[in-house]
């Protein structure tokens, strides 16, 4: 069994990704409140015309369900954090719990991918803390999936599980590189001051 899939280590994986995602979501919620109070508020993440939470917050994509997206983040990442604490405390969670967590994280990842595509191809503005959330979602999704494969929560052929186990870290790194590259390519003129 890979180290990260062991009880304690996996609890730490959940703790770190959950905490990073939760803090980024919380900052976005606070910035959103500040903008409600004062529409001219300059957020802490308004770096330049291309990296600006404030400008992203003005779009319909930033409140897909009629309320600011990061509110989902502070609720959902809190569940991840609570699970982390339970796991670290030695809880032996039922299979259905892990399946539920998997389903939630997959939905969250789908949402993050959609937000990534919107930021890059529709809005053409980056939001720093949103990117922190993407960064937390990648290892959370990959490592949770592999953990669930290893523990038999998700049934899969042995070869698939073995492959996923060996390459888990590499998959996370590869996704990071691809996402970073997509940002660099898309915002090349902005980054190089063109």
């Amino acid at each position: 069994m890979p180290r990260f899939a062991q009880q304690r280590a996996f609890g730490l994986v959940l703790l770190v990704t959950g905490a990073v995602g939760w803090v980024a979501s919380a900052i976005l919620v606070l910035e959103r409140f500040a903008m409600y109070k004062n529409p001219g508020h300059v957020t802490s993440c308004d770096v330049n015309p291309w990296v600006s939470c404030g400008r992203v917050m003005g779009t319909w994509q930033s409140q897909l369900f009629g309320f600011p997206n990061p509110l989902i983040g502070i609720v959902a990442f809190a569940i991840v954090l609570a699970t982390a604490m339970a796991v670290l405390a030695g809880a032996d969670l039922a299979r259905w719990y892990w399946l539920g967590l998997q389903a939630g994280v997959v939905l969250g990842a789908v949402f993050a991918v959609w937000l990534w595509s919107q930021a890059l191809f529709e809005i053409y503005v980056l939001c720093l803390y949103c990117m922190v959330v993407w960064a937390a979602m990648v290892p959370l999704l990959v490592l949770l999936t592999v953990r669930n494969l290893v523990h038999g929560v998700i049934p899969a052929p042995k070869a698939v599980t073995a492959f996923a186990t060996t390459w888990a870290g590499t998959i996370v790194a590869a996704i990071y590189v691809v996402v970073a590259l997509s940002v660099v390519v898309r915002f090349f003129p902005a980054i190089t001051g063109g």
Partner: protein
Amino acid sequence: MECHVKDNAKAESGLKTSKIIVWSLLAAVIIAAVVAVIMAQSGPKASDSANAAPEGTASQASLVVRENSHILSQAKDEKAVLVEFLDFECESCGAAYPFVEELRSKYGENVTFVQRYFPLPGHLNSMNSAVAVEAAAQQGSHEAMYKKMFETQSQWGESADNKSAVFRGYAEELGLDMAAFDRAVADPATKARVEFDKADGQALGVTGTPTFFLDGELLKVQSLEQFDAAVAATAAN
């Protein structure tokens, strides 16, 4: 048993090699991206230093604003002139547009805003949109068409089709004299007028858009706050 152990070792070393290859590829991609960014950044800098040569500065001021350059808004009490070289299809220009409008409402009393064309070759409708704005400008509707282009950019930008018909629709919406508009769009002189601006930009070392000149000097800012502060400083002079 021994044989089995050997196989395992073999498989493990094979795995190690493929892991090393994948990680090296990832590292190579990162290095390539970093090198590309650094090279692109040092590129324009080289031309900046060329502009800094005495001869370059002497002719620079006259190139930034010409007699025929389009004035978006003339300051009543002019203390500075902000010139933007832009491409109506460039998304960064579209992103900068609301900010420029904000600056215009904030500092319009003391800062004159000038817009110059700089259609880039990467987009299909860069020239078409510039020509449409120029055709509208000939009827005194430069500002209205300029605003229209940026407000609708997301609807026609990045398209692989010629959007001249859409731009003609905007002209109609603005209530322009359509016979004159069509004549202007068809007239090669209109395109030449756009290219005239672009040639000045190129002579000034403009390579991308939007590029701003504040009082004849290339504006180098890292953030909106710095931009705002730079304009505020000249406006208060």
